């Protein structure tokens, strides 16, 4: 008995094992890593593609070989496509979506917050937003072209409209979920209306706003490519459409791949911003 009492502290002092680090058990997926699984799935799909193409299970016109697509990337890079270099096509698309997203975010956040706070703003702005938001953007693209011409303005306006609504609606939802104690605490600490808005309302709504931005960027890519398919001479969407008309399936594949990479990079960037700005999300 006395042995036990004496040896326990001694052994733990001499050889202290590295402590096991733990976290709160979260519900659902939580923070368990999924990257390895996703990478493995991607490799499996690529392998399947290679196999199906090599064995000629599908005609080459429908499914080019991976090698051909890679070669096509190089050729497009050096020779360009339809009178513009590959980077010009990519830049044209990125320019449109980045500019439109900036405008939609810059307008959507303040207007959404205002609509969450003010009866008049809500009443007035609800009418146009609720009317146009459920429409598929492509249904009013012809109207944009009649009004604003075939140039950049109509495409960017279309994109702004498509991306504005989710940002604006999420900012409103952010205000609605603001706990009243937080507001009351700030007011009893002497916050004036503008400080309440900037220091309390805006950061409280930030998690929901970032979710809205993610949705908006997703919608943005879909709308962008569709708009470029219909009315454009530059851009990845145009490249895909034009290549399809010449049955250049490998170019279509390259275009789709570029869009996938861009969209993935955007959503990774937003996730990174989320991790930096709202590390407390879901914890309090």
């Amino acid at each position: 008995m006395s042995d036990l009492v004496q040896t326990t502290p001694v052994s733990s002092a001499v050889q202290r094992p590295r402590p096991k680090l733990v976290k709160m058990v979260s519900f659902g997926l939580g923070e368990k890593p999924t990257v390895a699984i996703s990478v493995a799935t991607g490799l499996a799909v690529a392998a399947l593609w290679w196999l199906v193409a090599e064995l000629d299970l599908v005609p080459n016109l429908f499914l080019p070989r991976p090698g051909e697509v890679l070669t096509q990337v190089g050729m497009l890079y050096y020779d360009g496509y339809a009178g513009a270099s590959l980077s010009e096509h990519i830049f044209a698309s990125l320019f449109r979506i980045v500019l439109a997203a900036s405008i939609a975010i810059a307008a959507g956040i303040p207007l959404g917050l205002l609509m969450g706070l003010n009866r008049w703003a809500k009443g007035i702005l609800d009418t146009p937003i609720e009317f146009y938001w459920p429409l598929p953007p492509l249904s009013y693209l012809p109207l944009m072209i009649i009004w604003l011409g075939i140039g950049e303005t109509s495409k960017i306006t279309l994109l702004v409209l498509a991306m504005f609504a989710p940002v604006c609606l999420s900012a409103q939802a952010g205000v609605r979920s603001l706990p009243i104690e937080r507001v009351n605490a700030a007011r009893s600490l002497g916050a004036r209306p503008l400080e309440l808005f900037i220091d309390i309302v805006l950061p409280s709504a930030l998690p929901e706003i970032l979710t809205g931005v993610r949705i908006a960027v997703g919608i943005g890519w879909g709308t962008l490519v569709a708009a470029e398919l219909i009315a454009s001479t530059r851009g990845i969407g145009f490249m895909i459409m034009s290549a399809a008309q010449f049955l250049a399936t490998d170019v279509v594949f390259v275009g789709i791949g570029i869009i996938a990479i861009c969209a993935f990079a955007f959503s990774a960037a937003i996730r990174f911003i989320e991790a930096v700005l709202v590390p407390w999300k879901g914890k309090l």
Partner: protein
Amino acid sequence: MLKVDHASVFFAARDGRPVHALDRVSFEIPESGFVVALGASGCGKSTLLNAIAGFLPLSDGAIILDGRPVRGPGADRGVVFQKDALLPWETVIDNVALGLKFAGVSKSERRARAHELLRLVGLGEFAKALPYELSGGMRQRVGIARALATEPDILLMDEPFGALDSLTREQMQELLISIWDRTAKRIFFITHSIEEALFLGTQVLVMSPRPGRVVARFDLDFVRRFAATGDARSIKSSPEFASLREEIRAILHSAEDLRSAA
């Protein structure tokens, strides 16, 4: 002096019938007074505190702070909430400094003062932590430090220790008494614990529900005795303390019986 004068509150309930939450409550908090409102849940304690804080207008009556009627929230009344209302994106020290920021104090100065207050509540080492990294009791202490930072004339506390374990709760009570004793602030404190009310208050208002009324008042000096001696055990085990505890328990039970009979 804070004067609550025949304060009544009727809430507009959803079915249109008014809910009588507070019925002509009157009391005063003198300089360095520690007034505790005690009662079961639903007897209008939070309603009363929200009215004093300026979050809720009265249906009738008046609340006068140092000669001026209360019209809205202000930095002259610091509030500590039942559920801590810290900003989850700010560090502990910036949470404490929030009121100073609104008052236009420079960043370095408000950091210095916030640090002082954090040491006062025993959280000097946690200045850089985010609120979700703290325990409930620690968050509540941050809430107290934050309310003290703007040097309010009066502290309003809505069951601040209600969610704490009894050991932490006693530590927090003693911490609060030492702050009260040192700063001579007026405190309005809400609790549903008879022991807590007796131990802390210079005056205890016993409330009964439906409508919320003050049914008894006790002027006490246990808190001054504790501030002088620091001996909580002998105070809480004194026959005086025990007999008051039983007396108040009887009042609360008869209020409850009246309600269920009605």
